[in-house]
């Protein structure tokens, strides 16, 4: 048997709430009254989670399937709730509703599924784990916080809608896949890692990128690349088939075949030119 904890939002707050304590490892093995007492920062005052959520625990049989049993369900419009799942290291959490800033930031393990839209800084400084967004994501996904040189350092983020600006800005390692479009400057100053964009990116893809890979699967309506990217060749990178297989296991089916040709551009030459942008030919 395994415990499943369900949190249902009672009322939408009129001021911001910071709820980094809401994550699976903080709930596991606790009674309802103990979970109700978990503190969250409402405005400038700490209040018990029980004031804001109806809490239920139900036992479920261990699943034999490969998919892990969800440890924590949260339901409601959590637009004003920031930092949910921040620093999450294990277990799984599913949110049915929109969630605010910093969801899954600094995450170092586990699985976070969001059935709704997210605010900015989703998965910022993430080290490991998986985030799946069945909706649109905000700006600075997997990015570095202000003043930091390196953002996401590992893990996977899958966004099945659109993403905002500065997607994967300054990321150091990891994989980001966006099914839809994204805003300006995806991969800005990225140090390494892979960003795959199924739709149309905004301007300045790969600006100031040092290393890493940006793959653009949709060749239509692409904005012009920065002048500091130079064309190299047209080919099918061998890792594309592997990446496609990995994404397929995560439920992302790309229409593009394994033999898809890409035009390779290297840049940003101002930063050494060791990064690459691969555009579907």
């Amino acid at each position, binding site marked *: 048997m395994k415990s499943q904890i369900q949190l249902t939002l009672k009322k939408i707050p*009129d*001021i*911001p709430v*910071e709820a980094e304590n809401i994550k699976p490892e903080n709930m596991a093995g606790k009674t309802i009254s103990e979970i109700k007492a978990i503190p969250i*920062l*409402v*405005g*400038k*005052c700490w209040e018990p989670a029980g004031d804001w959520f109806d809490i239920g625990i139900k036992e479920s049989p261990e699943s034999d399937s490969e998919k892990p049993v969800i440890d924590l369900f949260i339901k409601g419009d959590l637009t*004003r709730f*920031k930092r949910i799942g921040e620093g999450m290291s294990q277990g799984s959490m599913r949110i049915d509703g929109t969630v605010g*800033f910093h969801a899954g930031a600094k995450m170092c393990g586990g699985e976070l599924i969001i059935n709704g839209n997210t605010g*900015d*800084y989703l998965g910022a400084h993430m080290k490991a784990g998986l985030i799946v967004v069945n909706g649109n994501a905000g*700006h600075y996904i997997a990015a570095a*916080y*202000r*003043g930091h040189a390196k953002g996401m350092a590992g893990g996977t983020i899958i966004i099945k809608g659109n993403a905002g600006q500065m997607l994967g800005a300054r990321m150091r390692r990891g994989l980001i896949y966006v099914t839809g479009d994204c805003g*300006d*400057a995806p991969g*800005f100053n990225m140090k390494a890692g892979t960003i795959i964009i199924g739709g149309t990116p905004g*301007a*300045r893809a790969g*600006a*100031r990128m040092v290393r890493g890979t940006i793959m653009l699967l949709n060749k239509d309506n692409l904005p012009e*690349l*920065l*002048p*500091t*990217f*130079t*064309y190299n060749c047209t080919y099918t990178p061998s890792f594309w088939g592997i990446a496609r297989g990995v994404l397929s296991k995560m439920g992302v089916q790309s229409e593009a075949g394994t033999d898809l040709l890409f035009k390779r*551009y290297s*840049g*940003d*030459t*101002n930063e050494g*030119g060791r990064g690459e942008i691969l555009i579907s030919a």
Partner: protein
Amino acid sequence: MDQELKVHSDVICTFCGCLCDDIEVEVVDNRISKVKKACMIGRNKLMHAQSNNPDITIAGKPTSLDAAINEAVNILTNARFPLVYGLSSTTTEAQREMVEIAEILNATIDNPSSYCHGPGLMARQQVGLSSCTLGEVKNRADLVIFWGCNPLESHVRHLTRYSVSAKGMFHPEGRKSRKIVSIDIRPTPTTKSSDWFIQVTPGNTFEIATLLRALVANNPIGKGDDALIAGVAVSKWRELAEMIRGCKYGVIFFGLGVTQCRGRDINVEQLAVLVSEINNHTRFYAMAMRGHGNVAGGNQVMTWQTGFPLAVNFSRGYPRYNPGEFSVIGLLARKEVDAALIVATDPGAHLPADTGDHLKNIPVIYLEPHNNPTTEWATVVIPVAQAGVAASGTYYRMDNVPLRVKKIVDSDHLSDEEVLKRIKERITHAQNY
């Protein structure tokens, strides 16, 4: 009956970031009667400094100062997510009080730089900025680039006092010995007085800075000389890069056309790296054309008191910084704050209408020397003595040089600093801090 005439010399005009410190002001019977040497904007600001003062009001009804301060304290101590905002047109002494009030209240504090030159401050934190003083520019600069700014209309005496026609130690001929380049999206009085005006398409600052970096450093580019970047041929940008590399001492003055066009902080980040790399070839600097008189001081005070120049939150009892999350436009657009203390700025006129409208739905305490759009709806209005006219203190010029502004007339009202001190003391008492 004889009128008492006082002539004040070397008065500092507090209108813009230039802080011209050579103004002469004549005062007759405690009224400013004549202003000499100031630009038209500065003269008007000083001549009208003593008129159109608001009354002390609560919900539009006249009251006493004591009652207004009590009401302000009541509102602020009962708020669950208050905002302290302003700082740009008052003294650093008053700004210091505001930071302390924000800390005591566990509030969020921001200043107008978050929607003007704040992106430049974020970029500075990321990559630094090679900068200088206006005195150095006057004495040494032989190449001046105005990028996305129009000082002839916004900082009127900048060109004559510091950057273009000023006669300096190594440039006794002034204008004749300097090259002036303007990069802007449309002709302006500044572009017309420049040696070379490069008219660019809007929103392409980042592309220009990227290309200039490559051209200055001789990095490979994926475009031919005929290709257009921001509507201008690469060959023209190459000419500019050669001019930059060939100068002895160059400076870029950048305005809101750089910081607030598409890209914002990454524009300035790229520009700052460009300037840093130009220093591999020659001496080169960049400086923000700061707007309001002491907006630079607001950033200075917040940085030395909290560690961050803008958008600081104290909800957890210690300062945290994140523009976008804790900056005034974002907070109001998301309708997150439930009370506001606003000093020395006019959100009713400056903020986007739909964003500023949230302030009309929450209690607002407003300290301001003059009637303006915000005094019409603020919950508590406390008139104050205008800094630099009826109150002395410290202001920071756009190059971050601190200057002491004078008190040249008496006022019936207390200064921002004095009112804020009283508010702070009563909050401290109310919260048993």
